Every structure is written in C-alpha cells, then in structure tokens.
C-alpha cells in the first residue's frame, strides 16, 4: 500500500494567499447575526453594518498612510485598476482634453487591458519597456510624459519577478507634467512600506486575497488633496460617494480591514523571515542546478517572491513532476490556460527560457520544513528531467 499523501505544500503566494484564520474570525460575526444592508441607514441593523464598514475603511487607510474617506471599496484589484485607469482617463479627457496614458510592459494583464481599451477609444497609450531586471528607465518615463498626459500607471511590485518600482521618483516625474500617478499595489501593500503621502501617489489599488484577506474584495485609494476625480465605471445606487455603485459586503470589508491591520503590525518581521526562507530555498536548488538564473533584481524586490529559470527544463513538465508542491509557471490568470509570460518576454527572456521558468511564492504560513521539502522535490525533479539521474546510474 502506498503511504497517505502528505498535505500539499503551497508556494504560490503571489497567485493568492490563504485567508488568515484571524481574518476569518473577524468576518464570522458578519456571516451570522448581522445582516443589515449597509446602505439601509434608517434602522439599527444598517447602522452597525455601516459602522463596521467604516472601521474597516480606516484600517485599510492606515496601512497606506491615507485617510478613511479616500478609500473606495471594490470587488478586487482588477476592478480597482479598471476604475482608476479608465475612470481617470475619461474624466481628464472630458475636463482638460488630456489624452495620453503612460504605462509599462510588465504591468498586470488587467492594467494593460484597461489601457488597450483606452487605446481603442482614441487615447494615445505609451507602453514603456524595462531592462533585463525589470526596471524602468526613468529618463524614458520622463520623455514619455507630456502636458497631454492624463495618467501614469506603474505597479508598485511585479507579481512575477518581484521587482519594486521607485514610486516617489515616478510621482515626481508625472506631477511635473500635471499627470496623475496610479499604482497597482496589489503585490506591494502589506509586504513593503507603502505611504501615499510620502510617495505622493494619487490612485492606488489594493487586493484582499493577496494579503491574507478574502477574495472578492479590494480597494482603491483616491486622493482628496489635491482632489482626484474619476468617472464611475459602474452605475447604480451611488454608493461609495458615487464612485462605485453596488451593495457593499460588510463581511468582506471587515475581512479586508482586518487583513490590513494584521499586515501593518506584522509585515516588517514577516518580510525578514520570508527573505531568509527564499534564500534558503534558492541556495538548495542552486547547489543542484548551478546554472539556474534568477529573474528580477537581487535587491529592491519582494521578499516572498522568487522566479527562477532552469535551462533545459520545461516548466510544464517540471510542475507536473512537482507532486505535492504548488508553484506556478507565471501569473495565475484566465482559467488555468497557460500563456507564455509577457513579463519574461519584456525582460528579454527567449521562448525556451520562458518555458523553463518557475515562480515560487513564500508567505505567512510557509515553514522552514516546507521550504526544505519543496527544495528537495524541485531538485529531484530537475535532476530527473535533465537526465542527471540517468548519467548517475551509468
């Protein structure tokens, strides 16, 4: 008889994070006795839901140095990004005739898709390239941003290769030309310091399920001073000060608030721990495959992210061989369909290298034992796939 399978080791924290049990606990009361519609403010049930939502709003704001009233709840980072990009561009074209939008080739699909839609609507969309480590050349940015530019949108941290972009410097360049800065901070918030005041950010997207909160909730920070105005993308009951209609889900808002509060208290220690785990994993795998290459920079990157290219190995075969270890070959999108990564392409990886790349994400619940076990599985699988086992047997 085969032994019972051990629990799978989850190392895909950039795709999604498990919901922290403390977040689930905070949500539980809202699954049970509280059931007011947060907008039915005339009666007692409604008020308590509204209060909980406001508390959550303050917790989200505190994590990024914003004010509670600058936070708009959405259904997730995709909606936040769509609302920020299309909402800002449409507003500024209407109000000021600004028609340019500047972005970067390594942005998340939903940012690139939102920009592409603007392009079809007649906006002048500039997509900047990056260097081999995924960094943006700020002189290129400076050249691209002009007096017609409505918006610059650059992510805070890349979801595949972990590179961090210098938002304060990008904000300065954008603002010199009167452009607004939006940043997709889904991977950065709660992982690295983010402060909208200090970094002078106008619009910032947050995801719940990337920071140990629930799926189906996100937020958009919309600066009040100076005031940033958006054209709403969803019409209805005028909730969220008219910016985002639809009934709020108090349980999800409370869960996101709790996740932000936990992140604020814990992210620094967590990042240190994850960097150690990541390096430990990398050292072990590198011993067995000295020719492996790390994608993204060595410094200025997310502590919990690792992207490695193992020459001569196909990542699909490798993933299939990684029994019991959940990692990915790129970003998790479009219903499991595999698309050669646009991020790896942008940093100059050729097709063979792109197919030989794994993304490993470490997070709050990752243990040293899991890292060692997973490294062992990866090493063994790489060895098998590269024919090392056969050579050793000769």
């Amino acid at each position, binding site marked *: 008889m085969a032994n019972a399978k051990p629990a799978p080791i989850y190392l895909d924290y950039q795709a999604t994070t498990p919901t922290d049990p403390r977040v689930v606990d905070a949500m539980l009361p809202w699954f*049970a006795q509280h059931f007011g519609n947060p907008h039915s403010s005339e009666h007692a049930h409604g008020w308590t839901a509204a209060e909980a939502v406001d508390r959550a709003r303050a917790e989200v704001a505190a994590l990024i140095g914003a004010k509670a009233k600058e936070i708009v709840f959405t259904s997730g980072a995709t*909606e936040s990004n769509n609302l920020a990009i299309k909402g800002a561009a449409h507003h500024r074209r209407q109000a000021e005739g600004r028609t340019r939008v500047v972005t970067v080739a390594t942005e998340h*699909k939903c940012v690139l898709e939102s920009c592409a839609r603007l392009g079809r609507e007649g906006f002048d969309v500039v997509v900047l390239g990056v260097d081999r480590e995924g960094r943006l050349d700020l002189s290129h940015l400076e050249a691209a941003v002009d007096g017609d530019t409505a918006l610059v949108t650059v992510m805070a941290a890349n979801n595949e290769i972990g590179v961090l972009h210098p938002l304060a410097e990008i904000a300065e360049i954008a603002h010199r030309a009167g452009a607004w800065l939006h940043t997709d901070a889904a991977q950065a918030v709660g992982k690295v310091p983010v402060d909208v005041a200090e970094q002078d950010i106008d619009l910032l997207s947050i995801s719940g399920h990337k920071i140990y909160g*629930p799926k189906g909730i996100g937020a958009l920070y919309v600066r009040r001073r100076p005031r940033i105005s958006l054209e709403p993308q969803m019409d209805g009951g005028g909730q969220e000060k008219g910016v985002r209609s639809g009934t709020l889900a108090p349980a999800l808002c409370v869960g996101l608030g709790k996740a932000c509060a936990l992140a604020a208290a814990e992210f620094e220690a967590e990042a240190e721990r994850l960097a150690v785990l990541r390096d430990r994993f990398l050292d072990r795998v590198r011993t067995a495959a000295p020719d492996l290459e790390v994608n993204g920079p060595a410094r200025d990157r997310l502590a919990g992210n690792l992207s490695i290219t193992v020459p001569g190995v196909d990542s699909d075969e490798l993933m299939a061989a990684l029994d019991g270890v959940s990692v990915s070959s790129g970003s998790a999108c479009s219903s499991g369909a595999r698309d050669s990564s646009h991020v790896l392409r942008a940093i100059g990886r050729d097709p063979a290298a792109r197919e030989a790349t794994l993304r490993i994400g470490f997070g709050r619940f990752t243990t040293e034992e899991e890292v060692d076990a997973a490294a062992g599985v990866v090493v063994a699988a790489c060895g098998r796939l590269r024919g090392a086992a056969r050579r050793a047997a000769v």
Partner: protein
Amino acid sequence: MSVAYLDYNASAPLRAEAREAMLAALACAGNPSSVHAAGRAIRQRLAEAREAVAELVGARADQVVFTSGATEANNLALRGYRPDGRAPRILASAVEHVSVLAAAEQIELIPVESSGVVDLGALQRMLAERDWRDCIVSVMAVNNETGVVQPVDEIVRIARAAGAVVHCDAVQAAGKHPFDMATGGIDLLTLSGHKIGAPRGVGALLVGEGVELRPENRGGGQERGLRGGAEAVDAIAGLGAVARLSGRMLEDHARASALTARLESEVRRLAAQAQILGSGAERVGTTSCIALPGVRAETQLMALDLQGVCVSAGSACSSGKVSPSHVLRAMGYGEGVADCAIRVSLGWNSTEDDVGRFLDAYGQMVARLGTAA
C-alpha cells in the same frame, strides 16, 4: 435590544448552508486560475457553484458569469452589449432598479399602469415606432419596492418579435418563482446573492445563447473573458449552496407569504387610511408597500426603529438617503402617498414574532401619528 428584521428585499440574512460553504472555501488556499492541485481544488468548488446557479434558473453552467453583485451584472448586461460597437438603445420600464436606469447610455422608459405593471400597449407602440433590432428591452421580474410581478413571458414575446434582446433583472424573483431561462426566452438575466440568503459581494449575469458581450472589467480573462479578476470563490461557494436549495426556498417563500398576508390584513384593521400600493396587480407574497397618507416615510421609519423594527422606505441605496421613490411616482402617486410609504419585506427566516412586533409598533405609531392626517 433585539430587533425584528422585515427588510429582506434590502438584504436577507445569510443561510446556514451558505455560511458553511463559505467557511469550507475560506479554509482552502488557491486561485481558481492556477494550474496546480490547490488551484484545481478551488476551481472544482467554483464549477459546482456554477452548475447550481445555472440549474436554479434553467440555464447552462457555461452561461453563468459571476460578478460582485447585481449592480455589476446589470452594468455588464446593459453596457457590455454592443452589437455594432456602439451603445445600444435601451427600452426599460420606469420602475427598474436604479442600477439599470443609470447604466444605460441611451434609455427610453416604458410607462407602467397605476398597478405597477408594465403597460404592454405602450411597449408595443414604442417598439412599432422605429427599428429596435439589436436594442435591449430591460424589465425586472419582480419590483423591489412593491413586489409587483411583471408579465415577463409576454414582454419577451413582444420584444423578440421586434428583434430586441431581453434583459431581466431577476434579483427579487429568484427563489420565489420557479424560473426557466431557456424556455422563457430571456437573453440576459441578473441575480444577486444577498437577496436570497447567500452572501453579499456576489451576483451573476446569465448570458443566453448567441448574445455577445464586451467585458467591462478587463483583466486576466476569467469568466470566459467576460469579467476579469480572480473570482470571489468563497462568496460564490455560498451562492452555490443556496442555489441548491431551490425547493426549500419556495417552501420558505410560501410560509413567509402567509405571514405577510396576515400582516397586511392587520395593518388594514389598525389603519383604515393605510394603502397597500401595487395590490391591484399580481405580487410576490412577501413584499408590502404600505402608505400611511400624511405621515412621511422617514418619520415612520424612525418611529418603528425606536421599537427595534427594521423596514425601509422604497429601496435602500446610496448612503442612507431617503429620496422620493421613482417607482411610486411612475405608478402615478403624488406627494402625500409616494413620500409616505414604507416597504415591509419578509423572507426565509421571518417569524410570527417579527410580524407581531411590527404590528405592535405600527399600531402605536398609527395611534400617535396616523390620526393627524
């Protein structure tokens, strides 16, 4: 103070089955788009929920697009359908939910009769006036403020004959009426989670055969490319669990309808001047729109709220403003009635005690305020 909750049309309490399904999903890691085992496991839950929701309304699983709620579903239906690349003209009833009325770029309103039922003659005349091919006729199945049931089958027949696509906001009908999207001929159908005892933060748009939509939320290609963004699997699992209870939902609805009938007859006894608006039409049994002429709705709500009784004035939207109901205005009610109506709505967990507490509070209120009129 414990409260008596009679505001199910605003939001229904979560059913235990939904809560359990959500907790089970919350305990799993994994993004449903990931290739690995964790991703597959959560994708399986998503697929099961999709089957259940499709079955609830007689559709196919691949016709379900999960959204963050009905507002998003209505927006996707009305803004996403662009047969020739442009926003289509939309013919919507004057009593639609505000998310339908606001989402449409070019809208014409179909009047309703004083009973609240769509004026079918007017619809036919409007359709005959010009070419409505590739346009949308949008009519809700059940009105959220009055509970009036619209003759959807008849509307579908008339609209289709004119070549229009039919969108039906079925948010207030699901679980109260058996539904069959396939035989009913509806092209686009909106559902909400939190109106049927599933969680808030989830809804669905059902997209019929041959209807092509442009996504509003663009992203990773989820939901067959129609709605980007990682699916809210936990909330969706909760919606799936409730959708599986279709038989029980109908039983609960029948029980709550009996309670509502008692409530209405007692209200008539307590206040002879009270009017049940929409009572001239077929209504779902669990919604009562009760006007107490001369006593403003806000005043009534506060008086009832002080007794721990939760009802609402018209529909609950936008940060608690009580604004005059466009639904009652469309039915021809002026100030003095439209501004003096409360909505009482019951549902799956309503009790005799809820009704008793409402009637006690209502009786006291009428004794104190109602005679002024």
